[in-house]
Every structure is written in structure tokens, then in C-alpha cells.
């Protein structure tokens, strides 16, 4: 592995050396990493998302989940106030990639309590990339897209001074505290960044005054990052990120989490030199370890006490490069590989009996190797063609005799798999009448089933109250997706509307296995993962950015998705129509923001998946910010009231019909130094 990485590094470096000192073409003149990446990966029409993210991040009290929930492509599956699971265009779990800085991280929880989004605090977030179907597979085969959280790195200010900020905040609904410290130091070619965040929230109060039990959580997140500048164009970076959570409540699940810990480390090399043919190069090796311990000791009336530990270990690498091909086209190349081991077990204790022990994730290893290629060709000043393609080789192996014995119960003597995944897309965009830009694309994508879907052993789903067993014989999901988008820009106003349609073949879903008896006390039966012929998703997203006056920004987003399976039944986990409007008023050091959020009633639900109809709601939020400098110290005060009307509400993707927080008054003070 190491040898491959090193030799690949040399190959990349070698390619870079044959630079031809070409003139920059019109579309890669931005040398800012983030922007370049955005333009490169997502296409111009997607830039709307960056506007949204920038806008919502300006509220520094916003959590990553707050920001994500405001993006029209993203919806969140909620099982507690912590660890909401992101979905892109209603696809989630194994259908999408959730990455931290291009690294794969697999949750160690069989109940999906730990999506990788929990490891990134907004203070560590440099950028958020949401890539939908066309380009969403470039970093890893997926049918739904990729959510990549780019972590902030140290800044080479070379001032030999410690700079940074300290934030402290309070939330009234959960009587929650937030403390965060961020420091940057640089000297010569070295720069260091450390950050630490601590959050402690009690069980929150929902609209109307009811306290939601088991919605508390406590966590600490800390990171250290070191950057070494090799020359003007390249640097090395080492990152270590730790995250510990204690007593994390999941009111919609029968168990909470006693402790969850993540250790994420990486070493990377970056090079940006627009004068070189390969003008951007990046190589990274990484490893992470996630440990997760579910806990039922705080719950009343537990029929049988159980321990459910889970462990996920991943190591991997990637190499990325971008180069120009002539004046009008450029190429983005990514090669990556990773190996991950998952295992989880359950031990139940019945007094007077020997402990009942089983593997809920029979020990398995997933290896993945892939190459992604993106080619952008500017045919003329108006038209751009983009071709994306990626192939992945994915293997799954059961790695212990114990695991094989267990899976053999279901009649799968050989549960190992090897899959080739093929993905490709074509996208064309064209400017019309100077203020319009239309783009359309079509993509074909594939994904492998997850470890839970292949090997899960009586994994209890509290939404439909069924035990799920894996099926190593599942076929890969294959999706065709087409989308069409229209962007209208006039002055500083932008309107965009996107419509999409996906057909997913071999859609993976659970069906009742009547001959099996459920294992979880209180479960309604056993479901087995199977492929159904087809599922379809149709939807649209729209957003508007208006700047009627210099001091006013108005942002409005709208989304609607509808999904159905081969029999015409609605798919589960489809959020209803949601419309969000935010008006920001900024003058000098003061800003005020009024936000309303509305969702329609969801009547298209899947009863077999344990869903029911969800009422619509209307919410009003009010935010204020004030920024000042006193004795050379910057102060940033953010305050506001969320859910002013103290509405008792929940979203359709919230499990267990548990109400969301009611009126919440927050205050956050950030001191910069």
C-alpha cells in the first residue's frame, strides 16, 4: 500500500514537472483553492449552494446541521437532537458518501446514530460541498451524491503571534452551553492550528412546554493541524481530530449512547501552481477509528438490559490532480483506495442465565479502489460540456470464523463479494441571452449495499419496529438520473430552478420474512433486505437571491420531492415541500435577520416503513448580530429567537413523532484575539 502511494506520488510529481507554462484559460484563473474546487467539481450552476452556505454560516451560532437543513438538496433524518443523518435529494445511508476532507468514515453504530457530520464543528469547517448525482460519484461510487466537509487548516500568517477566538453560547430550549476555542500560530514555514469545542445540552423543551426526555447530549471536539510550507506552491499538512460524546440521548430509539469516540488523522501534500500543467495536486493518507457504545441503563422499563458496542476502522489514501488540456478543456483525476473493518456485537443479560452474545455486524472488511475522471470542455464562450466517470472495485469479506458461522445461519456459506461499479455522466450547460444559463445532464451511477444490508444480524429498526437481517446476495443499486436547471442572473439577483428525476433499479428495501421470529422484544417481526425492481424520485429545487438594497439580502429556497416504488407506493423518508425565506439587514456593525420556514403536510408516506402523515408547520426565527472592536479586541455578539411562535412541530423525517424544540433564545459571544 505504502509503496503504491509513494510511487503514485512520484508519478504525479513527475507529470507536474513537465509543465508547459501554458496561459491560464478563462475559467481557471481563480487560484483560491476553495473556489477552484467548486468551479471544478460542481459546475457554475451549483455555485448557488456556496452562496447559501456563506449566508447561513454568517450566523456563527449555527451548527453544521442548521446549515445543512437549509440547503435545498439536503434533508436530515432525525433520531435525536444529536447525530442527524443527512440525505441528498432524499437519498441517504449507503446511497450517498459523507466525507470529511475527502476521507471515508464509516459510522460504528448499527442504528446510524453517528453520521460523519457529527465530527465537524462549524469552527472547523472551511467549506461544505454538496455534490448531486452528476458529479456526486467522483469521490466514490454513489447514486445519491457526496457531502464533503472540508476542514479548516492552519493559516501561514508568519506573524509569530497567537491569533484566534473564543466563543461562548447558551441555548434556552435545552439549557445548553457551548464553548469553543480556536488558535492559530505560525512561524517561518510552519503553521499550527488547534481548536476545541465543548457542548452540553439538557433534554430540550418542545413547543408548548413539554420536555422531551432523553434528548440530552454532551460532547467535546478537538483538533490539531500542522502545516509546513515546502515552497510557494506546495505544503504538507497533518491533521488530528478527536471527538468524544457522552450520554447522547436518542428519544426516538430504545437506547441512548453512553460513549462515542472518534479519532481521525491524516497526512496530506498539496500543490497549487497555475503555471504548471497539473496546476493542482493533492495526495493524502488517512486513518480513522470510531468506537460507539449504546446504553440503556438510564431508560425505564427496559425488558432486558443489553450492551451494544460497535467499532469502525478505516485507512485509505487518495491522489488528486487537475490539469489543463489545451486552452479550452481541463481534466480532474482522482484515484483512491480504502479499507475498513466493521464489527458490532450485542450482549443481553437475563438474570440467572448466561449472557446472550451475538454479532450484530459480523466482522467484515470492505476494500475499495477507484479512479474518477472529470473532463470539462468549453466549446465556445457560451457552452460547456462536462464528462464525469468513475470505476470502483469493491470487495466485502467476512473476516472471522465467528462471523462466517453466524451468516451461514441464513444459508449463505460464502458471503464474500467482489463488485465492479461503473458511473458516468454527461452535462451540458449553455448561456442564453446573457442573463440565462441552462444546463442539463444525465448520469448513470451504481452503489454497493452497506454492511448492514449485507450482513446485519437482527438490527432493530425503531421506525417500523422490525428486526432487519442482511442479505449478502443483494444486487447493486443502479440509478439513472437526469436533471435540468435554469439560472437567471440580473444585477446581483439570482434565480435558479432545478428539476430532477431518478430511476433506481434494484432499489434496496426490507420485506417481511414471515417464517422468521423477531429477536428484539416488542418487535413486530423480521424483515430481510431485498432488491425491488425500481423506485423513482422526482423533485425540484429553487432558490432566489435578491439584493433590493445595499443593506438587504433576501434568500429564499424551495424544494419538493416525490418518490414511489415499482408498485406506485410512496417511498419512505421523503420530506414534503419545504420553503425557507431569510431576509438579512446589515448596516455597519449591526445585522438583523428574519427567517421563516414552512413545510407542507406530508400525506405521501410509507406505512410499511413505519411512517405516518406529518402535519405542516410554519416557523418564525429572528436573529441579530453585533460586531465591534474594543481595545483591539473584536467582539461578535449573536443572539436570536428561534421558533418565536413556540410552535409544537416535527418534520416528516423525524423518527418517533417526537416534537422539535420550541421557542429557543440563544446568545453567543465570540471574542477574537
Amino acid at each position, binding site marked *: 500500500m505504502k509503496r503504491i502511494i509513494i510511487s503514485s506520488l512520484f508519478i504525479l510529481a513527475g507529470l507536474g514537472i513537465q509543465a508547459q507554462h501554458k496561459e491560464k484559460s478563462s475559467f481557471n484563473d481563480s487560484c483560491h483553492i476553495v473556489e477552484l474546487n467548486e468551479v471544478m467539481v460542481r459546475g457554475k450552476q451549483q455555485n448557488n449552494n456556496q452562496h447559501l452556505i456563506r449566508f447561513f454560516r454568517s450566523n456563527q451560532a449555527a451548527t453544521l446541521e442548521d446549515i445543512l437543513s437549509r440547503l435545498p438538496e439536503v434533508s436530515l433524518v432525525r433520531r435525536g437532537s444529536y447525530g442527524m443523518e443527512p440525505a441528498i435529494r432524499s437519498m441517504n445511508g449507503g446511497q450517498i458518501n459523507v466525507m470529511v476532507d475527502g476521507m471515508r468514515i464509516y459510522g460504528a453504530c448499527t442504528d446510524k446514530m453517528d453520521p460523519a457530520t457529527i465530527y465537524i464543528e462549524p469552527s472547523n469547517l472551511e467549506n461544505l460541498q454538496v455534490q448531486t448525482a452528476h458529479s456526486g460519484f467522483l469521490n466514490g461510487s454513489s447514486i445519491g451524491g457526496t457531502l464533503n466537509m472540508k476542514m479548516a487548516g492552519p493559516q501561514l500568517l508568519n506573524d509569530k503571534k497567537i491569533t484566534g477566538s473564543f466563543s461562548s453560547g447558551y441555548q434556552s430550549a435545552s439549557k445548553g452551553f457551548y464553548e469553543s476555542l480556536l488558535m492559530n500560530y505560525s512561524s517561518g514555514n510552519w503553521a499550527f492550528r488547534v481548536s476545541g469545542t465543548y457542548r452540553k445540552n439538557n433534554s430540550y423543551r418542545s413547543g408548548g412546554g413539554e420536555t422531551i426526555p432523553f434528548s440530552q447530549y454532551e460532547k467535546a471536539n478537538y483538533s490539531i493541524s500542522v502545516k509546513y510550507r515546502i515552497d510557494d506552491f506546495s505544503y504538507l499538512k497533518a491533521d488530528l481530530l478527536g471527538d468524544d460524546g457522552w450520554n447522547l440521548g436518542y428519544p426516538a430509539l430504545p437506547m441512548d449512547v453512553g460513549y462515542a469516540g472518534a479519532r481521525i488523522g491524516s497526512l496530506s501534500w498539496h500543490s497549487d501552481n497555475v503555471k504548471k500543467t497539473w496546476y493542482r495536486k493533492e495526495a493524502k493518507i488517512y486513518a480513522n477509528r470510531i468506537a460507539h457504545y449504546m446504553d440503556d441503563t438510564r431508560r425505564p422499563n427496559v425488558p*432486558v438490559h443489553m450492551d451494544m458496542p460497535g467499532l469502525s476502522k478505516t485507512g485509505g489514501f487518495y491522489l488528486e490532480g487537475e490539469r489543463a488540456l489545451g486552452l479550452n478543456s481541463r481534466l480532474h483525476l482522482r484515484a483512491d483506495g480504502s479499507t475498513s473493518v466493521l464489527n458490532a456485537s*450485542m450482549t*443481553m443479560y*437475563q438474570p440467572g*442465565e*448466561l*449472557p*446472550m*452474545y*451475538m*454479532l450484530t455486524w459480523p466482522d467484515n472488511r470492505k476494500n475499495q479502489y477507484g479512479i474518477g475522471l472529470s473532463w470539462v470542455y468549453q466549446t465556445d464562450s457560451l457552452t460547456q460540456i462536462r464528462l464525469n466517470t468513475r470505476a470502483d472495485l469493491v470487495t466485502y469479506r467476512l473476516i472471522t470464523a*465467528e462471523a*462466517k*458461522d*453466524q451468516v*451461514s*445461519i*441464513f*444459508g449463505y456459506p460464502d458471503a464474500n463479494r467482489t463488485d465492479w461499479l461503473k458511473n458516468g455522466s454527461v452535462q451540458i450547460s449553455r448561456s442564453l441571452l446573457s442573463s440565462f444559463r441552462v444546463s442539463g445532464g444525465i448520469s448513470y451511477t451504481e452503489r454497493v449495499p452497506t454492511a448492514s444490508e449485507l450482513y446485519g*444480524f*437482527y438490527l432493530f429498526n425503531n421506525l417500523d419496529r422490525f428486526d432487519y437481517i442482511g442479505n449478502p446476495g443483494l444486487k447493486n443499486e443502479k440509478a439513472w438520473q437526469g436533471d435540468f436547471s435554469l439560472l437567471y442572473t440580473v444585477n446581483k439577483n439570482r434565480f435558479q430552478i432545478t428539476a430532477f428525476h431518478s430511476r433506481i433499479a434494484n432499489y434496496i428495501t426490507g420485506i417481511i*420474512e414471515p*417464517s*422468521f*421470529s*423477531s*429477536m428484539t*422484544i416488542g418487535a413486530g417481526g423480521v424483515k430481510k433486505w431485498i432488491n425491488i425492481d425500481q423506485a423513482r424520485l422526482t423533485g425540484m429545487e429553487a432558490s432566489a437571491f435578491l439584493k433590493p438594497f445595499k443593506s438587504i439580502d433576501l434568500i429564499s429556497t424551495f424544494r419538493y420531492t416525490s418518490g414511489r416504488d415499482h408498485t406506485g407506493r410512496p417511498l419512505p423518508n421523503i420530506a414534503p415541500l419545504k420553503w425557507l425565506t431569510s431576509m438579512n439587514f446589515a448596516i455597519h456593525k449591526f445585522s438583523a435577520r428574519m427567517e421563516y420556514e414552512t413545510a407542507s403536510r406530508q400525506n405521501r408516506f410509507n406505512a410499511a416503513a413505519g411512517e405516518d402523515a406529518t402535519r405542516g408547520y410554519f416557523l418564525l426565527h429572528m436573529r441579530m448580530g453585533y460586531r465591534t472592536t474594543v481595545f483591539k479586541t473584536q467582539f461578535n455578539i449573536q443572539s436570536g429567537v428561534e421558533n418565536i411562535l413556540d410552535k409544537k412541530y416535527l418534520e416528516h423525517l423525524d423518527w418517533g413523532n417526537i416534537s422539535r424544540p420550541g421557542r429557543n433564545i440563544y446568545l453567543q459571544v465570540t471574542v477574537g484575539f
Partner: protein
Amino acid sequence: MGQVRPERLFTKFPSLYMKRIIISIAAFLFAGLIFISCRKDDVAEPDPTAGLAKITEGFASGAATKVQVFSNRSSILTGYTRLYLALTDSASGNRIDKAQIELMPMMDMGTMKHSSPVENPESTAAVNHLFHAAVVFTMPSVGGTWTLSFKIKNSVNGKEGILTIPVTVTEGTKPAIKSFVGANDGNKYFVALVEPAKPKVGINDLELAIYKRVSMMSYPADSSLSVQFTPEMPSMGHGSPNNVNPVHVRKGHYTGKVNFTMTGFWRLNFNFMQGNVVADSNQYIDIEF
């Protein structure tokens, strides 16, 4: 000669060169022989009773034979008990690998006596110096005394003798033998669990041995029943999928498959049929691991 360099010497005296080669080859072969013979000596024969526990021993006096009785468990529990017999000539101490052995267990309850099902060694030849037998103890040594008689016909010296030894049988916490009176024919049947001896999470071989009581002294193997079973965890209220009902294979032994989805306390509920008639449906055997 000492002044001449060896290679030149060889060219001068080819016969000497040949001689050297022959000597080297011979030395090589000799060394090899030593090596091989050493190896032979080094490899001690593995102890055939490794991993087994000695239950008892005694002399079958008429046969001039010492009998050592081993089992896979250190104490004898009710149910199907595997016994491994090692015979030696009591005078010479040599192993006896050929003998005809018959076992006769006897329960003396004072007012009455009864035997129990046995499986005598299938052949007069020992398997790896051991004679494999089994006794199905139908009750513990409570309210009576178990004795076990071995009738040995030593094929080496042609003598015959009997060894009778007392054995203590205890009831395990989870008895692996059940009996019932067939509702169909009024006969008493004994059902003993043979496998899984070492249960695991996953697929396990399930093996039962079924015997019919013909008289107090005769318990022949029975193949007339058909067996259905369902495993369950009584404290959890669930079973396991994809089990295979045991069917008769030979000598009253029925084999099938039982799946355990986790460790812990399992109960196998049985339904014994004779044709379409239920013989019994109340028996169960517990397994905890």
C-alpha cells in the same frame, strides 16, 4: 602434496578428484540417513487419550486385561455418554488393539434393577488404540447405584473376563435426556442429545439417539419415530430460522441442524410422530452456552 593447490591437484590426479566426489556423496547420504532416523525417533506417537478424562480403571481378571475407561467429560452425567476404552495386557503392559467388548450398565435400586441403552464398540479392532463405546444413563445415581460391566474377550490371548465397576452419574443442570411413553403404542422411549456437544452461534449439527424400552434389560435403538423440533429462547420469546428436523440415519441416531442466533439459554421443543400419530409433544431439551 601440501604445496599443490587443490584444483591443480585435481587436474593432475583425476582419480583423486572422483574419490572426493564419491566420499562427499556418501557423507551426504549418511548424514541424510542419520537425519531421517533421528526424525523417526523424535516424533513420539501422540497420546491417544489426549483431551480425554480418565473415569475409572480395573482388571478384567479372567482376560488378564487392564481396562482404562476414558470419557470426553471428567464426570459422568445423565444422557448420552461417550466412553473410550484402552486395554493393556496386565502381565506385559502391552496395548491390546483387538478385543471383543460388551458393555452392560446396571442400576440397582434395591427393589428392582434395570439396565440402560448402550452402544458397544462396532468392531473388534481398536481405533487409534481406543475402543469407542457409549452408554446412555437414563437417571442419576440417586435412589440407586449404577454399575458398569465390561465383558472383554481378549483376541490376543483368547481369554475372556468381566470387569464390573461402580460409576457415579449426576444429573447436569440441563439434562440432555428425556423419556416419554408413546401415546400411540404405550412404549417407553428414551431420547438423548448427542450433538451439539459444543454449541456455537451459527449452524450446529443436531443429533439425537432414540431408544425403546423392550424390557428392563433391553433398550434397542429405535428408528420408527419422526422428529420435529423448534428451538426457542424462553426468556426472550424467540426462535431461530432455517433449522432442519433430524431424520434417522443409523442405530437410532437422528441427525439434523439447529441454528443458534446468539449464546445463552435455548430450549429445543420436540414433537415425536409415528406415521401421522403423535407419540409425544411435551419433551424439550435445554442447552445453555
